[in-house]
């Protein structure tokens, strides 16, 4: 038990928050509500998995929120144009992958810093989505698309099934495959990885494609939920995706990844949102709480690093921070 807590420090605050919410509201601890929390957490955890790879590599992708919008729009307008559901889904995922590929190529081949490159694609993709929809909603009513969120194979909500599959794949890839090891190697020291002959550029591009694809899945889930796509969807989602991963304990400077942590991070965020809703707090508090949570998690991480003595010299820790 103690071992588990050490590995996933988020467990304690999560249980604490859940206990507080169960006592202070009558509605939190009901099957219906818990299912809502888990479905929302599952939707957030899927892109969280891909983002875990990205952060383990020591990089960010800020364009994922815009990818959500554009892929949702692509899927909905394909359906409106009379395409069958599988083709619409495929098109959306393909668009997500292309955005990821573009990010990867710009970052690795043109040498643009990931932060700025994905910031630029974030604007470009958002612009494309707004331009394509001309500011209107693309409303669909498709039972096939609805199944992505509303379906219940074996009585379990579809997003939870997808998230569990994604988490299992993610865990396996990070811990049991060469690719996962390479990603962590690049995250801990890219120069060393290059000098050891790893195909660094190709791995980075692959990770960005993965993030783009997961953004596509996220966009599909969101449009499935709302039965529409528009240029405004997914605003600020990049912060959510990064927060989930960072909360889960994946090191911001790369080199370490925790898939289970990411899962719990998603549950944590959605529990807090759900709790704030049940307690009737205004939406502004939700923004503040996500921001505070992010800062608190990182401050805790920094302190733990010092306690363990893994970074004995302050000077050293500072150097790495400024490199991030």
């Amino acid at each position, binding site marked *: 038990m103690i071992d588990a807590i050490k590995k996933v420090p988020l467990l304690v605050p999560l249980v604490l928050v859940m206990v507080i919410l169960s006592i202070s509201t009558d509605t939190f601890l009901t099957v219906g509500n818990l299912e809502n929390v888990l479905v929302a957490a599952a939707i957030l955890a899927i892109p969280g998995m891909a983002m875990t790879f990205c952060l383990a590599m020591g990089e960010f992708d800020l364009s994922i929120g815009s990818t959500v919008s554009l892929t949702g729009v692509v899927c909905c307008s394909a359906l409106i144009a009379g395409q069958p559901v599988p083709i619409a889904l495929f098109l959306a995922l393909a668009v997500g992958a292309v955005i990821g590929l573009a990010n990867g190529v710009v970052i690795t081949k043109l*040498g643009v810093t990931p932060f700025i*490159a994905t910031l630029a694609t974030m*604007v*470009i993709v958002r612009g494309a989505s707004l331009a394509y929809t001309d500011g209107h909603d693309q409303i669909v009513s498709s039972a096939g698309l609805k199944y992505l969120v509303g379906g219940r194979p074996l009585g379990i909500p579809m997003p939870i099934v997808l998230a569990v599959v994604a988490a299992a794949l993610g865990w396996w890839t990070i811990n049991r495959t060469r690719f996962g090891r390479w990603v962590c190697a690049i995250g801990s020291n890219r120069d060393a990885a290059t000098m050891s002959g790893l195909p660094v550029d190709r791995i980075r591009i692959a990770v960005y494609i993965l993030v783009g694809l997961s953004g596509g899945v996220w966009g599909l889930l969101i449009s499935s939920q709302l039965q529409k796509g528009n240029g405004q969807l997914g605003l600020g989602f990049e912060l959510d995706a990064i927060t989930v991963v960072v909360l889960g304990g994946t090191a911001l400077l790369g080199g370490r990844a925790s898939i289970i942590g990411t899962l719990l991070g998603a549950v944590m965020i959605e529990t807090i949102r759900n709790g704030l809703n049940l307690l009737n707090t205004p939406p*502004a508090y939700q923004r503040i709480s996500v921001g505070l949570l992010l800062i608190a998690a990182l401050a805790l991480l920094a302190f733990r690093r010092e306690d363990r003595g893994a970074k004995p010299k302050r000077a050293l820790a500072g150097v790495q921070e400024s490199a991030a």
Partner: protein
Amino acid sequence: MTTETIIERTGDKPAKISFGRLWDTWGVTAILILLLLCTPAIAPGFLEVENLQSVLRESAYVGIVAVGMTFAIASGAFDLSVGGQLALTSVVSLMAFSGGGTAAAIAAAIVTGLLCGLVNAGLITRLRVPPFVATLGSLFVFRGIAYLLTQDGPKTLPYSQIHSPFVKLGSLNIAGLPLPFIIMVAVFAGGWILLRRTAIGRRTLAYGSSPSAARFCGISDTRIRLFVFGLVGLTVGIAALTYITRVWTADGSAQDGFELKVIAAVVLGGTALKGGKGTLVGTFSAVFLVSVLNEVLVSRGVESAYQRIVLGCVLIVALTIDGLRTRFAGPGSFRRAITGLIPRKTTQATS
């Protein structure tokens, strides 16, 4: 590296003026002048006095914050929270104005801006949170507080106050130049002196090029962070004054995506993302390059959605040049950057 590089480096002659070095400082300015020379052809009516005044006035608040951001990026850190700071500062300042008039509004804006900056610096130095995430988190906190303060609707300047001196801040012209533009030029001048003529400016650059080396030279990183983020907060305070007297209203969603505009301007201007190099001349020209480009697009009837796409592409192209140049840093880098467009494996130390 080729032999010619070595010969150039070991030569005894003082470094001759290279195109690359000139480009670093004046490249954006040259492009801006080129664009301005083209405007009569592509956007008739652009060069009319009223239109130019409006461009200058609109650029002011981005430009003022860009001064602070130039310091932040030169020190090797981003401040992503400037949008939240601007919203919060504007809201607080408007509340102070309805309570205590012009002086209170100005004081409130400056103090709130500074406080926001100090909060960021505290998060980074005391809690040891990396600047990127600290300011990402505080962006949401600041915006959230601004939303909380404006739950009953956005704060506005009442129309009855149209003759108060505060409102004049945004609308007055002195010798044909809008006051916000004059304030911006003053802030740039102050920033230039700080960066080039004072110890703290030099220390900021030193810290940006190598934090550990700077530390070994006795430069305190707490002080650098306090100075840099405090300065960003201060410039946001000043910018908020020109912003609210221009648009008369503010709420939590004011200037969404502001941080992108500011960072884009600084980076376009030629301040290196890795820190250690900052050019306020470049930032100044880049601010106008972006707003002139926007104005031209608007007058050509291009929709705002496409304007985003153009801005993003301009950013990527500019940074590609920057990335290729740092990759082949040294004399003759320009030529090698162009021949270096063919991809090849390289080592990059920072991400």
